[in-house]
């Protein structure tokens, strides 16, 4: 199979994830969409690795997964903290960093 099929699919997944990050207001869903974007990128990396026939891309993909796990751990921790403090679970309401 041609690598371009994989790339098109990965671009779609990435685009869906980006659209989700930009349009959804629930931080949990935003995190989910972030995962989608990361996995879209992962798919492209793995596809290129297969095309070149070496393991470099796969190692990149593994590292991205590790980073994603860390990110989820931190992100979920923040969301739990927000719940505990009874703050609104809405990224638009949490705008304390406005300059």
């Amino acid at each position, binding site marked *: 199979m041609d690598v371009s099929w994989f790339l098109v699919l990965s671009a779609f997944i990435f685009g869906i994830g*980006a659209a989700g990050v930009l349009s959804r207001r629930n931080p949990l869903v935003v995190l989910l969409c972030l995962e989608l974007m990361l996995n879209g990128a992962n798919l492209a990396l793995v596809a290129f690795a297969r095309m070149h026939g070496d393991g470099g891309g796969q190692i990149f993909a593994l590292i991205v997964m590790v980073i994603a796990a860390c990110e989820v751990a931190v992100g979920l921790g923040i969301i739990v903290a927000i719940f505990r403090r009874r703050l609104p679970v809405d990224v*638009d309401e*949490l*705008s304390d960093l406005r*300059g």
Partner: protein
Amino acid sequence: MSATSYGWLVLAFPLVGMLICAFGYRRLPGHSAGWIGSLAILLSFVASILMLLELESRPEDQRELVDAAFTYVHSAGINVDVSILVDPLSVFMCLVVSGVSFLIHVYSVSYMDGDEGFVRYFAYLNYFVFSMLLLVLAANFVVLIVGWAFVGAASYLLISFWYRRTTATRAGIKAFVINVIGDVGLVIGAFLLFDATGELDFAGVFGAADNVFTTNDGPLVAACLMLLVGAFAKSAQLPLHTWLPDAMEGPTPVSSLIHAATMVTAGVYLIARTHRLFELAPLAADIGAIIGTATLLFAATVALVVTDLKRVIAYSTISQIGYMVLGVSAAAYGAGLFHLMTHAFFKALLFMGAGSVIGAMAGNQSLDRMGGFRKAMPFTFVTFTAGALALAGFPLFSGFFSKDEVLAYTLHRGGGFVALAVIGYLAAGLTAFYAFRMVFRVFFRAPVPEARALEHGHPRHGEPHNPTTGEPEDPHVGFDGTEHHNAESSWPMKAAMGPLAVLAVIGGYIGIPGLTDTLEHFLEPTFADSRFADSKPSDGAEYIGLGVGALIAITAIAAAALVFLRRRELRLVVRERFDAVHTLLFRKWYFDEAYNAAVVRPMAAFGRFARNVIETRFVQETIVGGAVGLVRAGSSVARSVQSGYLRAYAALLVVGVTALGVYFLITSAG
């Protein structure tokens, strides 16, 4: 010990006394600060005498000693040491300054008794004496300027000593501003001399001046005129005299010490010290002589009508310094300095007597309120009269010899100097008249209530009030207290006035023409290089001058007696008749008004303009406000990016990365 070592001691004692008084401010009990200050000056006087003896033991051509304590600047062609010059002139000045200062310190112990600022007063006074001695001992222009500025500061501090009295602080500011005009003149003069000769030491400047300058050379005349500006500001000569009468706001011993006996004669000293320059620039010397003469006549006329006792003596001081300036400008150095010395004696004495009377009047200084103190205060009466006789130039009193010697030398110069000498004799008559106007109005006629109370031994302690405006004052810190002292009841005041009275009587005997001439011989080494050193009036001419002076003095005193004792209605008749002249003199020739209109008010208006327009509109609103507005506008743009919406940040990121990607795609395709 060498003469210069004593010279350093002369400087050290008042400095130590000042430091003890200044740092012991809270710890010195009772009168101890006064006695410490007096002792310091006494030791300084003793050191001056030892310096004199040491100098006398040397041959005449080796009586100019310079000693440097340390190097101050030594680079780029400027060589300045902190050094003192011990020669007959500086020793003479040291003796006069420290001697008179010691007596005035003793007098002050009583006069300032009970004042809240007693210790502060003596710290200032010692500081003044140190500065004055530094001025007269300086061996180069830099040290001279330091001493010159120090005495100006001391004068400021002491004039506004009663600092809660607005009139006193105003007078202090006025004195300081005019003195700074003089300081600037002196600095510019010294710079012009340095520019031409490359030297700052007196010996170096005078030595080089003969080679560098020709007679009446433009730069030299300019330098000498600048030195004259300095001298005139310090010595209260026209047109920079207006500060001295106002300086009478200070305590009376301060008027006596600084504004009569010592500091105001610094200008005379400066001209005498730089006489070799003035002889090379006769134009500047002539201007000095003319202004000195104008001043002595002007001040004598004002002293005729002023009613404030201290201000009469202040104008008299201006007038007498005019004689000294005339003398040293007309190359009669010995005579001018002789008058400086006798004037220090009798004028300090007159101020002390005035202080005693003012004490008895509970602070009132108006001649109109005084009268009949002769019986109440016999000691003050005798000493004050001795001072007045010396001032008037009554035969055989000290002023008689010194003033007439100045005029005799001036006459001997011939030419235009004859006119100046004639004016001098005319003003001598006015001097005798106003001197006895004071004596007759204060001590003769019917006793006023204060005098009667004193005769019965009940000195009056009135409510404290401002002697100038008459406003009541709170006698606490910063004003003179309720206690007023007079010489009859306190021995330190008597102890100070007694010796001065004796000196005012006999002080002239060291300069009887042809008989003693002690002072002139003593000063000869300093002025040996003068081109007028051999041009002296004959003894016969001097005795004729003395005779004329005596005649004028006696006539004027008789006239004063007629007007103020015998036919008192005459005073009012004359005043009515010459009302316009009286007003002109009473307003002091409108100098203050003219300066207010010409300088003070325009400057104040310019200051207001600068504050309201330049500072408020331009600096504050335009420059400062504009910069703030610019930064604020810029930051509000930067702030609007920070919306706080997470999704907006994410969108920016996506747009940015996408734009980058598109850019690279386009460039790689091209």
